[in-house]
């Protein structure tokens, strides 16, 4: 009896352990999927907002970034090249965040812009509605480039030219757009902030 009871109890424990393990595994997979979606701007666009949000898994163009030391007097030194490469990468990350939000995750755009722009520049940018026209679905970027000149003196100022081309659909019409912007950035306490900007966009033929 003891044995039988003991045997029954052992089976129950095994069953419960198996169930708990399965539940934990399922929870882990679900959490991983959710975290993965949350970190990807292309993915988060489709989670909970406007019908114009980008579909999750459309392939997007790779960002092409070129950073170079600007305003060099004389010959470019290795130190200037290194500073431009490192700071150019950091500044371009801020730019990528802004454009990923603007084009692929519109509801997050305001928060991201306020995080990366100086207050006056952010206000002007948001009031100018320099973003994707409404009701565009199936947004797919076909080219994304950043050309960033980093001040050779102390790598604290930078000027970036951003070019983006994209395809999308508005109702049943296919549209192609291109946007070009110039962003003036300054490094304040290790983070790059946009001080001023100039942007234009139009149909891409």
């Amino acid at each position, binding site marked *: 009896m003891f044995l039988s009871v003991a045997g029954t109890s052992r089976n129950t424990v095994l069953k419960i352990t198996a169930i708990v393990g399965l539940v934990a595994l399922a929870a882990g997979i679900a959490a991983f999927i959710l975290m993965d979606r949350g970190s990807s701007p292309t993915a988060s666009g489709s989670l909970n907002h406007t019908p114009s949000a980008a579909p999750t898994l459309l392939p997007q163009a790779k960002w092409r970034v070129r950073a170079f030391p600007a*305003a060099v007097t004389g010959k470019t030194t290795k130190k200037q090249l290194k500073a431009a490469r490192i700071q150019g990468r950091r500044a371009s990350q801020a730019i990528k965040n802004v454009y990923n939000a603007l084009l692929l995750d519109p509801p997050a755009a305001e928060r991201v812009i306020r995080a990366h722009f100086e207050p006056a520049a952010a206000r002007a940018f948001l009031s100018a509605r320099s973003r994707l026209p409404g009701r565009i679905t199936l947004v797919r970027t076909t080219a994304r480039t950043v050309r960033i000149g980093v001040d050779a*003196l102390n790598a604290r100022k930078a000027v970036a030219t951003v070019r983006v081309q994209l395809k999308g659909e508005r109702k049943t019409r296919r549209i192609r757009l291109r946007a070009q912007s110039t962003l*003036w950035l300054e490094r304040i306490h290790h983070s790059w902030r946009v001080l*001023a900007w100039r942007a234009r966009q139009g149909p891409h033929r």
Partner: protein
Amino acid sequence: MASAPGAAPMKKALVVIPLVVAVGLIAILFPIVGPVRKSAAAIRIGRVHAGFQPTTGKLFVLVIGNDARHGNPNGALADAIHLVGIDTNSMKAGILNLPRDSWVTIPGYGTGKINESLVDGGPELVARTVESLTGIRIAYWVMTGFGGFYQIVKNVGGVKVDVPINLNDPSGSGAVMSAGVHKLAPLQALSFVRDRHDFPDGDVSRTANQARFLLALLRKLRHEVASNPASLLKWMSIARRYTRLDISLSELFRLAILASDVSPKDVSSVTVPVSFGFEGPQSVVFISPQATSIYARFKKKAHF
């Protein structure tokens, strides 16, 4: 032990020659490596009021050109005085040109020619004098002499200017050029902004030409930045090299961005209406009462 004949003069020469060379080197190098004096910078930029931030979207900057051949020494007279206004909302701008012989009240110094205010109290006093004259609160002043002007034009690779009339003043300013568009080299540009003998109203037309030159410089900046935005950093680097900044580099960067955003076609230039006369033995110009309405309009809109 007897020394060889001629050894003493040789010894003396060995001591004296290095001494002369050392003294010579110090004399040559001291101005280069020695302490940079406040007045030695070719261009100077500063704030008129510490901590003043314009909040109305109108920014006023006083541009002063002095008659110093090198640097900005004390005692130089202000030969060019221009108040530049920018409306940061509409991105329209205006230049108010003040003739240097304008007879005005200099705060704390009674009445005198406006160009003397630089001798009396430096660029800050020129700014305060213009403020008391126009009622406009000025945020920054920029000052350069001949040296700074020369370096700016040289480093930006010359400036294209539309010369209004034929100029022929070889013995004065050195300006000899025909009417029309010219790309001016540094010395030509300097002669263009200095020439007053070719104009019947002398300094009044000269001050208008100086505004014309400022606009040409703005046109060049804008053109370069439009074709290559990173060139703004080059302009900044030129400014840094020759400028003694009383403001932060960050502030200069913001001002440069602002300037590059103004289209020259949105910039209007007005010279203060004046009448010619004498104050004692001095030949001066008296600012006409009509100027009051110009100041009021400029203060309100920052352009004309």
